């Protein structure tokens, strides 16, 4: 019984990582005032880039870095339209998602079914010797460990440093930020890029570690779940980790039930669970926040900045 609990906990961690990276990336972008609905597209492009680059360079880390770079560059497309051209950010983000799905499908055909290098789980000595905790948290793939640092660092950066304050100022009140000499455009471009890079990292995690290989639309909506988790987390990286783990747990529970042959719940309902669960959680959170009159979204989210001449 205890091993089952540990197994579920391990899978929970593993299946929450892609969403976690993408969510934290989107938190950065949205905190600066840019709503990027292209996460799904950037993840897919990242996943394909990671797989293809790893194959040609025979290096997992080159693949991972390439995925982050490509994700970031794709985010800059949205950034150019949203920040410089000031177009409707919802349509631009959707266009990026469609473009990403199409492009990754188009360029990814030759890679379907290929096997390449992958990140194998390994014990992070000496932490993996801790009973239970070590087994759950510290026998994972190399792309999982950076997340343990990223979550607290992102929190500290956002809420405890001067740069984080500037970032939030740009998202809350760009005119005021501009007045005190912060470049709204540069800030927004920078964090849109970082958001895309983290979505790309999430994609790399999918194709190099979680489900090694390339398949068209392999992210299966995780980019959208990340966007939902940003609202759930109220634009806070620590809460985002909680949300991602919750999502991972639902996934792990589903895998466990299927593997153990538990037929109490039909398998198709189990597969729907992560999506239904996300919708339910979003409804509860939105309702609860509306009741407390605290929505928590950056004030200037989705609104282009135009300096008054």
């Amino acid at each position, binding site marked *: 019984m205890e091993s089952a609990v540990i197994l579920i906990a391990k899978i929970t961690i593993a299946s929450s990582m892609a969403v976690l990276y993408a969510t934290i990336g989107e938190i950065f972008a949205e905190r600066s005032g840019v709503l990027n609905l292209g996460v799904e597209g950037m993840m897919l492009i990242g996943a394909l880039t990671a797989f293809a680059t790893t194959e040609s360079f025979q290096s997992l880390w080159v693949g991972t870095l390439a995925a982050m770079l490509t994700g970031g560059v794709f985010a800059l497309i949205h950034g150019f339209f949203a920040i410089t051209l000031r177009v409707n950010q919802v349509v631009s983000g959707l266009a990026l998602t469609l473009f990403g799905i199409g492009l990754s499908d188009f360029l990814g055909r030759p890679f379907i079914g290929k096997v390449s290098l992958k990140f194998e789980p390994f014990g992070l000595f000496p932490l993996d010797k801790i009973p239970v905790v070590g087994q759950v948290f510290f026998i994972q793939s190399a792309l999982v460990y950076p997340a343990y640092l990223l979550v607290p660092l992102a929190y500290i950066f956002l809420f405890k440093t001067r740069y984080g304050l500037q970032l939030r100022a740009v998202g809350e009140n760009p005119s005021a930020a501009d007045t005190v000499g912060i470049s709204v455009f540069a800030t927004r471009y920078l964090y849109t890029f970082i958001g895309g890079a983290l979505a790309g990292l999430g994609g790399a995690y999918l194709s190099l570690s979680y489900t090694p290989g390339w398949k068209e639309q392999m992210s299966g909506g995780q980019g959208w779940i990340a966007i*939902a988790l940003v*609202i759930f987390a109220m634009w806070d990286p620590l809460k985002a980790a909680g949300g991602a783990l919750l999502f991972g747990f639902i996934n792990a529970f589903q895998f466990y039930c299927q593997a153990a042959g538990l037929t109490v719940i039909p398998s198709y309902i189990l597969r729907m669970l992560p999506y239904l669960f996300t*919708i339910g959680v979003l409804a509860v959170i939105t309702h609860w926040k*509306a009741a407390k009159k605290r929505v928590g979204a950056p004030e200037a989210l989705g609104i282009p900045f135009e300096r008054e001449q």
Partner: protein
Amino acid sequence: MRVGLKKRLRPLNWSRYLLIPASILMALFLGALLFLYVGVNPTRAYLEMCKGAFGSFYNFSEVLVRATPLILCGLSVGLAGKMLIWNIGAEGQLVIGGIAGSGVALFLSSHIPPPLVIPAMLAAGFLGGACWGLIPGLLKARLHVNEIITSLLLNYVAIMWLEHLYFGPWRDPAGRGFPGTAMLPDGAWFPRFWGTRIHLGLLIGLGAAALIWFLLSYMRWGYEIRVIGANLQAARYARINITRNILWVMAISGGLAGLAGICETAGIHYRLQQGLAVGNGYVGIVVAWLGKLRPGAIVLISILLGGLMVGGDQVQITLHVPSAISLVLQGAILFCVLGGQIFQEYELHVQHGKR
């Protein structure tokens, strides 16, 4: 030197008619780079695409066949868009419409008088899609939950349910493992015209476009929808019931996508199978925004993108280039139109010297 945007004193009117053609040209140029990347002569690829889409009467009829679900999905997204509601869930509503309509055909058609079978299927398809659209609608209207995310996530749920049905309880026992339901009974097949695959669905799509146009242009309710979309505060001030309007619009929007589902099932496939969820709902988003949410333009854009998709299939067959090229081109066209629109109201402004 600084380059920025400056608002034009007067919007650039003449460019309105050039916007879409110019955007398509830009997108085709991007596509040409992709063709070069995969080692295919772009001129040859585009010629093949044109031949595939417009080379003969039959080919063009295939374009109209592909355009049929796009018209309905585009209207679905467009109607909600008029109220600034983002229905990204047309794909799922289409699937549920297909399930509901073919459920009627498979299990109830023997109890229905023959002339009423197809109307009953259409009603079921519409209602199925409407119910699926009402879920994000209710969440939005009652709890203020972001409809973009909920409607999108419900797509995955709908597709999983569809797979469950044709792999499981609705699977054709005589199908020898083919994943799909049994064929629909003869009386449930939509009539086809002129020896092509053009079917009743095209008329339904055109009729729906006319109805939505009439609704938005001439009816009080359509006016309310436009006011809510244009200025929410003004609508509140005029005592327009926003909650009720969200629910009705999401129901009809879902219903239109649902019609697309049953039309595809009963007009083309004649059974529920994997080919139902091929992304028409997502293309509907592109259609609606390229058509600027106007029903007439949505019909034209649907035919255009239908041509792109048929052309994409053609290059897959003859040049072995993945047909996903049409999705790439759609995304690129949408970006170009978005960017181009800005230059109607703004102009490039170059400032010399440091500020």
